[in-house]
């Protein structure tokens, strides 16, 4: 099975189209305005999906099996509170005392199932449209739980701890109310291979699916190097919190950045692959870091050069670590530019990069990494966006056997998985 950007683009459009139709139906049903959040194709390991589910909040979901034009399972998952909110909205008109319930009795359960079914159908109709096929849907299963286990039960496509699954993730939010949910598609391997084959551009070789292990390995090595560089430079203990590979349309990258003041350090890198690398800190974290590095720094450190150069220096070391990690896995060399400091609001810090890449590509693989410090402000989001053709070449040259043997210095993912 080979992946190519054209085919992944089709999957991406499926996810986006499906989310739009589902959002429209939710609006019609509840009368609440809805907004489609960022849609992503994630390459996620089973362990990451697990930690997504196990955030301490109870979950309820509605799962269906797909067949005919597309095989797999689709699942809509709400926070339990969120589901109750929807049901309250739905029943508010017919039942005056509906605010009182907070248990899943037969009626709420069937209301959630109906809701889930309508949303699932919305998504699936969107996918069928994009694929130009008919997809059959089984009767829905209602699932509740605090871990991923009941949701994954009897699911052949569910990824094991270290398996990398291609996952559609969409979020729909209701405007001004707390209804949010995630939608997952676990495609059947063969079914997906067929579609990938059909959608693949003729002039594109594509990436062998097994080489995705290389992606994951790159992300892992890069993140580890950054965390240890950050700890060395600042003396603040840091850990890799999230590490994820997304395939998104370029526009989705700036959309995801919150509209708040951000401090960042950006690089262009050149080699196999080339691309752009950005470290983004919220302002409080950036100030804390400068404080740790330069105790004599003024209160508003970014008004003068001292704070800027401290952050740039840190960025430079983190970038070297990150890209060395990649080069190590890919067995190539990657050079990077001098750091560029940026302090601005939200998406403005990243859109120049997206625009530059947008001249030649519509989608991008984004290595999305978040580093956190225990008990202190140190939140850093890392966006590594390689040039598409370069990345494809680098991965195809990759010897997967060698990847498995590449030694790692420390294993931060274990911390994430055990917690």
């Amino acid at each position, binding site marked *: 099975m080979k992946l190519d950007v054209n085919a992944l683009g089709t999957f991406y459009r499926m996810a986006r189209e499906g989310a739009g139709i589902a959002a429209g139906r939710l609006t019609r049903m509840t009368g609440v305005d809805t907004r489609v959040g960022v849609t992503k194709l994630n390459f996620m390991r089973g362990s990451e999906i697990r930690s997504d589910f196990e955030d301490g909040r109870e979950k309820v979901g509605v799962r269906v099996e797909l067949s005919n034009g597309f095989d797999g399972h689709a699942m809509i998952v709400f926070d339990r509170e969120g589901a109750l909110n929807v049901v309250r909205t739905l029943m508010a008109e017919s039942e005056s005392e509906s605010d009182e319930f907070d248990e899943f009795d037969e009626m709420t359960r069937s209301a959630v199932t109906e809701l889930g079914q309508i949303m699932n159908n919305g998504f699936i109709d969107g996918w069928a449209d994009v694929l130009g096929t008919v997809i059959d849907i089984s009767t829905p299963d209602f699932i509740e739980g605090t871990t991923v286990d009941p949701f994954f039960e009897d699911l052949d496509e569910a990824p094991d701890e270290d398996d990398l699954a291609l996952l559609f993730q969409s979020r729909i939010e209701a405007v001004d109310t707390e209804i949010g949910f995630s939608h997952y598609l676990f495609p059947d391997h063969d079914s997906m291979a067929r579609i990938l084959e059909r959608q693949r551009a003729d002039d594109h070789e594509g990436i062998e699916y097994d080489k995705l292990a290389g992606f994951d390995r790159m992300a892992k090595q890069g993140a580890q190097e950054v965390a240890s560089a950050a700890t060395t430079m600042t003396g603040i203990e840091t850990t890799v919190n999230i590490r994820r590979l997304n395939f998104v349309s370029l526009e989705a990258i700036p959309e995801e950045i919150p509209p708040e003041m951000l401090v960042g350090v950006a690089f262009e890198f050149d080699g196999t692959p080339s691309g752009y690398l950005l470290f983004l800190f919220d302002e409080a974290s950036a100030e804390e870091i400068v404080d740790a590095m330069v105790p004599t720094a003024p209160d508003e450190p970014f008004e003068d050069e001292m704070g800027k150069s401290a952050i740039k220096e840190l960025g430079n070391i983190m970038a070297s670590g990150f890209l060395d990690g990649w080069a190590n896995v890919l067995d190539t060399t990657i050079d990077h530019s001098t750091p560029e400091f940026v302090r*601005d609001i939200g998406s403005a810090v990243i859109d120049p990069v997206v625009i530059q890449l947008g001249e030649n590509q519509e989608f991008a693989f984004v290595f999305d990494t978040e580093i956190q410090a225990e008990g202190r402000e140190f939140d850093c989001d890392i966006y590594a966006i390689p040039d598409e053709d370069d990345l494809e070449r680098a991965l195809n040259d990759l010897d997967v056997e060698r990847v498995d043997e590449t030694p790692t210095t420390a294993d931060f993912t274990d911390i994430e998985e055990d917690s």
Partner: protein
Amino acid sequence: MRTYGSEPGTPTTEPVQVGISEFVVSDQGLTLKAYGLGSCVAVALFDPDATVGALAHVMLPNGDENDSVDLKPGKFADTAIRAMLRRMVEEGADYTSVEAKIAGGSDMFQFESFGDGVGRRNVQAAKDELEKLGVPIVAEDVGGGRGRTVEFDTATGVLTIRTASDDGVEEL
């Protein structure tokens, strides 16, 4: 990000968000808002006589040279401007009365690969297309190294621009 269910004409206090690669046309006096423009460009068109306005949040200069335009005309300066004009005329605007205001197109990074600047290229493309169509640019706040958030009041044609610096509010 697109909102589902907002009926046109519903009185609203919240500005309507115009996401990257999108445009919104309004003959209802809505306030349209584009957050965090770096090198992106906001193109606001307004017919003061018919009170029809539109705002685009464009990402790339040239759609005519790109094969994916059919999907999202709002993504490119040239195709977005043409699509907005067409929609505005459908909503009752007079082509010859439409005026333009543009903002954005900063260049915050000096990377080698960026050439003469991605923001600059976007601004130039917007200006070229407006000139080609004979739409006068009555005000602009473009270039530089800071991001901008713009709010366009389609009842008055006022374009409000905020930057990250403390004194950063400007009306065009």
